[in-house]
């Protein structure tokens, strides 16, 4: 590295959202050819900090310098002009435009016209240099999620970014795609590009970064060179301030099959799914996100109808099911999109607590709501599950993610379900909330409920499941007892690799 002037320097950055202080007097620097890992719990302020560098948010205080010179970044256009590129946690692409149109949007063009020729040339250049290619004419809506993210990365490189910010890039990638990304990052390093790498996957962070910066509650709490001495546990302590509590699974006797799926097809062309979950058993569904997990859960829960197959609960077939019929049959479903699908953010906690039940006794009689009963029920749940703040009248959207999840868990468990489907139960939660949810799942398991646990987080799957099944391309490709499963084997299956399923 010839020149050691930082490509990007953030000094004293503070950013508030209403009452929340997302960044508190943050200093951050990135040098040429350096990969910096940015770590922190959910809500620590990582994305906010980088959004500020990219001109999406305005800081309330602090300054930015690019290549040593003070820079004013008032918009993303300013950031791009200064050679900063960002790939967001959720890709932002135009589904109905072609790859090429997506790449060229926002570029100046030539003689006031869109310059296709130059764009194609640049695309080929990027493919050659970093191994990142895409068919320019494809409609972006047809791309797989990993390809969309590649498009985002190419788009940043297209603009000759010297600073590349990657916000949780691998959460939607297969391990192969992750490998591809890593080799691209290495190629970028040698070109002198600086990379900010935000991730919760500590193994990846340790593998690819030169330095890690850890944030907690909006402030930087550690800045350490990745000299090979970092450990996952050490990083976790830096992030949360303590060693996370771990709920462990104790083996116990399971009952008869409570949930049986036979010949379930999620789409016309997909393979059938056969799966049984016994009472008191947790079956973990592992898989790279985007492999049909959401559709799988929704099909069982009656939210969408599967293309084919039967679903049995306690031996009874529930056909042509709707969410209501599945609830009546004893199934509870906690979707991954909590605020989008599980709650009505503008309604008070008390209404949300009975969202699927307010039409019937004890919360309504002959169509008349019993507000008193609803309030009493909500108060009890708030106390039992320690939901904060303890105010049943508060619109639930104002609660933090962890407390929203507690509320949904409280609501669904109150139904005393025979079968529970829970998707990404701890996504976006901090350690105490995670421990709470895990404890509740174990309690339910002990009570004999059949639980289908869908998670991207392999650690969580291994920690809680009695059996592990892998979902790949909208089908279950293998299922085995947790004792027989290995992380490597499951990882291979998640990529479509063959697994010799032990008996």
């Amino acid at each position, binding site marked *: 590295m010839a020149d050691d002037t930082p490509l990007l320097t953030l000094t004293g950055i503070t950013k508030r959202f*209403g*009452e929340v202080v997302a960044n508190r007097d943050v200093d951050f620097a990135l040098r040429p050819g350096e990969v910096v890992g940015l770590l922190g719990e959910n809500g620590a302020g990582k994305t906010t900090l980088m959004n500020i560098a990219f001109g999406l948010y*305005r800081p309330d205080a602090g300054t930015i310098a690019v290549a040593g010179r*003070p820079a*004013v*970044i*008032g918009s993303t256009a300013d950031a791009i002009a200064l050679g900063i590129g960002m790939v967001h946690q959720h890709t932002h692409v135009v589904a109905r435009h072609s790859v090429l149109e997506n790449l060229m949007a926002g570029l100046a063009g030539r003689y006031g016209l869109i310059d296709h020729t130059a764009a194609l040339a640049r695309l080929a250049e990027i493919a050659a240099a970093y191994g990142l290619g895409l068919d320019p004419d494809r409609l972006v809506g047809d791309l797989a999620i990993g390809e969309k993210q590649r498009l985002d990365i190419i788009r940043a490189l297209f603009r000759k970014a010297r600073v590349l910010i990657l916000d949780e890039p691998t959460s939607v990638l297969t391990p192969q795609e992750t490998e591809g990304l890593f080799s691209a990052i290495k190629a970028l390093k040698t070109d002198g590009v600086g990379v900010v790498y935000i991730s919760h996957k500590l193994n990846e962070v340790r593998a690819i970064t030169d330095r890690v910066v850890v944030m907690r509650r909006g402030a930087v709490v550690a800045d350490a060179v990745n000299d090979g001495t970092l450990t996952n546990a050490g990083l976790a302590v830096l992030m949360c301030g303590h060693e996370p509590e771990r709920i462990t699974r104790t083996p116990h006797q399971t009952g008869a099959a409570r949930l049986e799926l036979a010949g379930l097809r999620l789409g016309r062309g997909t393979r059938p799914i056969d799966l049984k979950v016994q009472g008191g058993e947790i079956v973990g569904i592992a898989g790279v996100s985007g492999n049909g997990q959401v559709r799988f859960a929704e099909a069982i*829960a009656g*939210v969408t109808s599967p293309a084919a197959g039967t679903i049995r609960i306690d031996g009874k077939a529930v056909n042509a099911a*709707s*969410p*209501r019929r*599945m*609830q009546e049959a004893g199934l509870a*479903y906690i*979707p991954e*999109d909590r605020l*989008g*699908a*599980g*709650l*009505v*953010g*503008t*309604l008070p906690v008390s*209404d949300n607590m009975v*969202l*699927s039940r*307010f*039409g019937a006794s004890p*919360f*309504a009689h002959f*169509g*008349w*709501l019993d*507000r008193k009963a609803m309030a009493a029920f909500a108060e009890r749940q708030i106390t039992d599950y320690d939901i904060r703040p303890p105010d049943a009248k508060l619109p639930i959207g104002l609660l933090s993610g962890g407390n929203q999840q507690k509320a949904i868990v409280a609501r669904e468990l109150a139904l005393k379900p025979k079968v529970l489907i829970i998707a990404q139960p701890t996504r976006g939660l901090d350690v105490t909330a995670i421990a709470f949810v895990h404890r509740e799942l174990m309690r339910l398991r002990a009570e004999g409920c059949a639980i289908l646990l869908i998670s991207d987080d392999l650690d969580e799957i291994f920690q809680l499941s009695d059996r592990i099944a892998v979902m790949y391309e909208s089908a279950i490709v293998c299922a085995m007892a947790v004792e027989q499963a290995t992380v490597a084997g499951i990882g291979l299956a998640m990529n479509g690799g063959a697994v010799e399923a032990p008996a």
Partner: protein
Amino acid sequence: MRITLEPRPPSRWREVLMPFAAIAASLVLCGLLIVIAGANPFQAFAIMGEAAFAGKFAITETVARAAPLVLTGLAALVALRTRFWNIGGEGQLLVGAMAAAWLGAREDIPVPLLVPAMLVGAALAGAALAAIPGLLKTRLKVDEVVSTLMLNFIVMYLMMALLSGPWKDPVTGWTDSPDILMDAEFPVFWAGTRLHLGVLVAVIAVIGIGIVLKRTSFGLAMKVVGENPKAAHHAGLDVGRITLFAVLLSGALAGLAGAGEVGGTQFQVIASISPGFGYAGLVVAMLARLSAVGVIPAAVFLAAITTGADEMSRQTGVPFFIADAVQGLSLIAVLVAMTLARYRIRWRPSPKREAAS
């Protein structure tokens, strides 16, 4: 420079005061127009207030004028609860009026049943018309803003065809329907005024809808569907059915407004029976901030603007069209105020200029 909205902490009094602030703002704008027209705004407002509210005649007339607005306001509100933009209140009102006029002129209906038949028929007609965009939206996902708007024009022209064809007034030959029977005229419950059954129906509707929205599980279901249809579906609510019910209810309410105009004030259908009551219903619903009880003051406010502006215009020479301007301005003012109650506007100077200075 960049303008951003920042959420404010929630505040009860701000929410309560907001509509008044909005109305005050629109009156200030209106006052400006009056000054431009060369009149004294204070005097003009005094005349308006007097013409709308001073004395038995003024008050009862304003209330009677508000009755159809209450009903179309409720119609807009009920549909909006499920996030259905029923711009079709106007057409639903017209079919309601036509149904009421048709039934009210029939000799073969027993006299005691005439008025009830008109009310029920109008409600059904309005609901039936609303069913078209309702079904299109819930079954085929056809955007209701366009479909309801188009249906208004279609209904209006069909009504014109009816009025200048089969329903042409046999006596005058003009485009107005035959008169309804004497017995079909809505009873007036305060002699010497025009407080007719339609006004009572409007008040009952407010109470009824208020109760449905607040106290029944259907009301809560509508709200859940409107606020988050995905969550509603996950919770086992039949989103399509609930939306459709709300839309039918909405159409029925607008149809009732038509019945009131036929049975209580016009006694026949004429081409210009509605001065845009259906569209004004949306204004009413927004002014009322989607609360059923709020519909009454909102409708009375709009009615008072019309009744007041008319007299004010005659006395001061300010063009009468100011009434239309005030309605539109007050709608915009309320919308803006609703936003400002929840957000604060921050003007951030451009960082470039900041850096340069």
